[in-house]
């Protein structure tokens, strides 16, 4: 199937010479939720801004539903909705008129019923006649989302949609995003809350210093890069790990009470059985054990660290 967004060899150098994107290649599948992760300054907003037409592309090409975002900007942009990271709003406008304005700007005829539906879905209906400057920060962010949804986009970019939004509303927002996906809308979001990506995304891309580090299904990403840990709580505290066991990836806690064994999820032979046997031979008994899988957050930190390490 043709990707709904296709980024090819995209590079961007800002005036002043800073290279924000380096030969980025990325395909977004139709109807998926794609999470773009990366540390501050990685280039997430730059990438989104180029796709949406806010920042001039350097070299390379971006297609949205097959339309070149520069040459066929009209066709490309009319199917895209954008919620920017910055809270930029028309302070003096009412919520209703600001959202209606967006719909018109995107070339859609007036449709009060749709605007009403969007405002209600975002719990903004009661505030529709308030001026935007009278709203709280979280409400303003929802106004931006309402503006982006006002013209019924097929592709929605959410640049940190839940920054500054309280927990309950964040849940609501996740539901709304899933709801949009069920209507066939493709969603690309950036976030610094890893659990958000873990909870929502179908696929995840990690970007660091302007380069795409990895793009994969969330599940296989966690499987491939995830590590499992087995923690053994000992009967008797140990001074040190016996010499004979040092070839295993074992770590002793500071108080000597717990041994941690780390192994890759995907490897066939984990070596657990061997380790347990050897522990037994050395008379190390344990009273309890606990196993854990690494979260996306740890995977992410490892990836970014790895990429940093390459350069040092």
């Amino acid at each position, binding site marked *: 199937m043709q990707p709904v967004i296709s980024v090819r060899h995209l590079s961007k150098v*800002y*005036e002043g010479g800073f290279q924000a994107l380096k030969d980025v290649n990325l395909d977004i599948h139709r109807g998926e939720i794609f999470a773009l992760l990366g540390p501050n300054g990685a280039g997430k907003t730059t990438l989104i801004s180029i796709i949406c*037409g*806010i920042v001039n592309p350097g070299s390379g090409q971006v297609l949205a539903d097959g339309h070149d975002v520069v040459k066929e900007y009209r*066709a490309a942009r009319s199917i895209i909705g954008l919620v920017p990271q*910055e809270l930029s709003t028309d302070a003096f406008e009412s919520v209703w*008129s600001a959202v209606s304005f967006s719909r*018109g*700007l995107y070339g859609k005829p007036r449709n009060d019923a749709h605007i009403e539906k969007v405002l209600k879905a975002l719990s903004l209906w009661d505030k529709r006649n308030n001026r935007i400057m009278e709203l709280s920060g979280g409400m303003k962010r929802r106004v931006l989302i309402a503006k982006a949804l006002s013209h019924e986009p097929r592709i929605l970019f959410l640049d940190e949609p839940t920054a500054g939004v309280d927990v309950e509303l964040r849940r609501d927002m996740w539901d709304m995003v899933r709801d949009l996906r069920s209507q066939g809308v493709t969603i690309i979001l950036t976030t610094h809350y890893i659990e958000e990506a873990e909870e929502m995304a179908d696929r995840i891309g990690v970007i660091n210093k302007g380069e795409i580090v990895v793009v994969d299904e969330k599940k296989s990403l966690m499987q491939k890069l995830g590590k499992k840990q087995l923690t053994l709580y000992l009967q008797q505290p140990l001074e040190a790990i016996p010499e004979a066991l040092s070839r295993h990836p074992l770590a002793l806690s500071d108080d000597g009470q717990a041994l941690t064994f780390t192994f890759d999820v995907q490897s066939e032979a984990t070596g657990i059985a061997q380790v347990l046997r050897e522990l037994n031979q050395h008379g190390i008994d344990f009273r309890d054990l606990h196993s854990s899988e690494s979260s996306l957050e740890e995977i992410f930190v490892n990836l970014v660290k790895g990429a940093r390490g390459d350069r040092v």
Partner: protein
Amino acid sequence: MNFYAVRAIYKFEMARTWRTLMQSIASPVLSTSLYFIVFGSAIGSRMVAIDGVEYGAFIIPGLVMFTLLTQSISNASFGIYFPRFSGTIYELLSAPVSFVEILMGYVGAAATKSIIVGILILITARFFVDYHIEHPLWMVSFLILTSITFSLFGFIIGVWADGFEKLQLIPLMVITPLAFLGGSFYSINMLPPIWHTITLFNPVVYLISGFRWSFYGVADVNVAVSLAMTALFLLLCLAAVWWIFKTGYRLKT
């Protein structure tokens, strides 16, 4: 053509006008009217007529023109500068609109405001000064053409400015002197020859002269020249705006 977008921008901008009625309409009308009271009713009667036109009436076209210029520039420059300043420009840049549509919205609204102000000033002036309009159609044409041209010019300034003081700079430091020295209060034929020649480099001379001709049938320079100069300036502004949108100057990084 994204007609809905043009209408959305136009409506948005006009809503701002009605919201700030005092500042955007009442204040320019009032401040220009002061001139009519002073020069028309009070001092005007003691001044000699110029080209056979009573002094109070003589200054009306120039003053209206002066207000049109400053109003068009400040309306349009603020209209586009403010979204740049507040960050809401992102929406304009990411919307499926062409630069022609953006212009039609912003420049159309700014020009509309100027035309409203211009007409209100003409009506107000009637209370203080007795004047007539010989070529009403030409008068309206000049009014509209000037409003559009200088709204375009204002749009360019709004894109160029990177601070509020720069927005004020051009209307105050350039347009005001050019309008005052461009024959708002006198006929440039009254100047010594050398100054007369220098004054012909002032583009505002042509606007005022043409506009005054539509009122009283007298002009400092030929009307055709006035019209041509205005059209030329309009084309220059259009070319500049086209370039701005093509390169994304000050709009996109």
